């Protein structure tokens, strides 16, 4: 029992990331009809927003401390971050400690901006081209973006820890009546899950309760009719692209402490996110979320030793296997609409 709960919890954080990326992919596919292979790169850029903010906050000036000496006997050089000298030592330190959450604010305008530039500058010209061309050009863009990141940040993962208070783990087992240490779950992963839930809720609320969202949903269902009503749907779709980019970016920002950002994390997540979208049903937002969590949890279960003992390697392929079976037996996925991309 405790093992099952633990696996569900373990699946939640990856599932949250899958769900957030898949949500954005689906928004873009549903509104613009574009298959965006660069979406993983947006997730990665989000994570590097956290890295960047951390770097900015820790920008330091060097002073010499004559009271101490380094190993060569010279006065010790001390690096003091500017923020500490501007805001005082403790406030500055707190700012640095909270770099990742702060990066949420920092990343939103950046991600929306990148989204706009991408859509207006590139994707717009590919609406009328075949899906294969869209896949290829966004794949090319993904390569370029990841190489740019590699150029400026190097090839090694950059550890970007969560704020001090969120480090460490919580012993869930005790409150549920299990032995101590049976179910241990890191605080930050709880934060990540809650954060994803909030973002997902916000996106759905936005689509459900604002007129803007209503128009977009109507456009997703039937683009032509909405166009005929004289509503400029394209402009709204551009904005949706920005929002989708921001969602992917935020997923990345908060993922930074879970997995040290590296330049190829986008590509790693991309394939899985596509699988998630397909399993959920192309064009279905609830489907993307559901499938994201479902596959995340399934993956966690498949990596249990008891299960791997029965079917070796199942943890490596479970997601793909599920996806293949779903595509073959139920091409519209779990919650896809009838007739949308069923061929």
């Amino acid at each position, binding site marked *: 029992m405790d093992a099952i709960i633990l696996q569900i919890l373990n699946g939640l954080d990856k599932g949250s990331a899958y769900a957030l990326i898949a949500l954005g992919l689906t928004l873009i596919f549903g509104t613009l009809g574009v298959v965006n292979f660069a979406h993983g790169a947006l997730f990665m850029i989000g994570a590097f927003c956290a890295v960047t903010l951390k770097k900015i906050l820790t920008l330091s000036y060097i002073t010499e401390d004559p009271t101490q000496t380094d190993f060569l006997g010279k006065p010790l050089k001390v690096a003091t971050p500017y923020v500490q000298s501007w805001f005082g030592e403790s406030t500055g330190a707190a700012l640095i400690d909270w770099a990742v959450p702060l990066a949420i604010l920092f990343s939103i305008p950046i991600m929306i901006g990148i989204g706009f530039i991408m859509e207006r500058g590139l994707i717009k010209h590919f609406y009328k081209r075949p899906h*294969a*061309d869209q*896949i290829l050009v966004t794949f090319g*863009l993904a390569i370029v973006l990841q190489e740019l990141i590699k*150029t400026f940040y190097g090839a090694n993962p950059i550890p970007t820890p969560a704020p001090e208070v969120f480090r460490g783990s919580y012993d869930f087992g005790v409150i549920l009546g299990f032995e101590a240490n049976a179910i241990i779950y890191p605080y930050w992963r709880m934060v990540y899950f809650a954060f994803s839930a909030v973002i997902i809720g916000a996106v759905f609320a936005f689509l459900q309760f604002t007129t803007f969202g209503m128009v977009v949903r109507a456009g997703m269902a039937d683009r032509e009719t909405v166009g005929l009503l004289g509503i400029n749907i394209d402009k709204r779709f551009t904005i949706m692209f920005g929002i989708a980019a921001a969602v992917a970016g935020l997923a990345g920002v908060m993922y930074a402490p879970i997995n040290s950002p590296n330049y190829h994390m986008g590509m790693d997540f991309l394939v899985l996110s596509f699988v998630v979208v397909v399993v959920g049903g192309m064009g279905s937002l609830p489907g993307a979320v559901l499938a994201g969590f479902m596959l995340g949890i399934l993956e966690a279960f498949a990596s249990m030793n008891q299960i791997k003992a029965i079917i070796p390697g199942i943890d*490596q392929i479970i997601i793909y296997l599920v996806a293949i079976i779903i595509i073959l037996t139920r091409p519209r996925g779990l919650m896809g609409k009838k007739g949308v991309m069923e061929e």
Partner: protein
Amino acid sequence: MLGLNKKDTTLFWIVAAMSLLAPFILNPFPEGSSLAQMFNAGYPDLMQRFVIFGILVIGFNILFGLTGYLSFGHAAFLGIGSYSAVWMFKLVGMNVIPAILLAMIVSGVFALLIGYVSLRRSGIYFSILTLAIAQMCYNLAYSVLGNPASSYNLTNGETGLQLSLDDARIFGESVTADGALPVTNFFGLAMRSSYKMDVGGWLFTFNAGYYFSAIIMLISFYVSIRIFRSPFGMMLRAVKSNQQRMNYTGLNTRPYILAAFVISGIYAGLAGGLLSSMDPLAGAERMHWTASGEIVIMAILGGVGTLVGPVIGAGFNEYFKNILSKINDSVLHDWLAFMPDGIENLMVGFLHYFVGKGWHLTLGIMFMLVIIFLPGGLVEGGQRIAKKFGRKKKSDETSTTPAE
């Protein structure tokens, strides 16, 4: 000639001449000169990669170029071919022919299975299915099937599958007389043996492995021309053009596409087998989905659906990868020495990001530019230039009209 029309025959001989004379063509600068260091590409391993990736992309083009089905998992067949060949070297012997045949057979069987499953869907779903299945193969090769401790260690995981001194090699020796690993050979002709020709300041290397691969590439190229001009090839182009019409015309499209898929899978397996024949070491990274992406990139760069496009695309990609990765800051400073110092430093600082380790970036940008502005690839670019200069060279391989 050879059952080809005049234009195709010419094309074939041009490619044949270029590949057979490659050791000269690729080494235009005298040995040891700074230009040679940069631009000469007549090294055996590089030349081998030109033709082997040529085979790979020629095969990919039979699927994507003719039917329009974009497979994002073709690297799986390359990897499967590589592993099969190394196993043949380990178990049977060091002759490359059985190894290559096994590579083709195994990858063909895999292609049949994977194609049968993936082709139940078309469009994006097909791409994602191939992507998912290939990624599954990669993950398996990396984990369970590659765990040295497990009983089904087929791939040797991260280390890669390689020869060892205690391999069986039923029809050969496990260890040579002087205690070393035996080398791959074609009935005794070692793949790594080379003949070097010193002419003036020039040094030309004629490598057995290269010529072996080049000849196989030419055979593959010839077969692909025949397929392009056959009724079968026409059916595949018709699938790409209008699958619905095909169905209502009484043709079952699926076996046609599956046949194309299997053929291109066999081509990829052949390429993989050749890679192992040149260097008997197979690693899982050859199967990663980004490697599949690179196949797509090469095909697009050259020109999808054209006959020579794949050869050009593969050569271009490998050549520029090689050159770009060799350019470093001091080379840039040399080249830009004519500029005022300030500007020179600025330029070098800027270009620095696109060369050396940054070559991925340059190729990525180039790939995007080609898709955006030149969907027909370099072949189309060449045609446009030819047209601009008014030469009435009626171009050739893209035209679907098979002139006699």
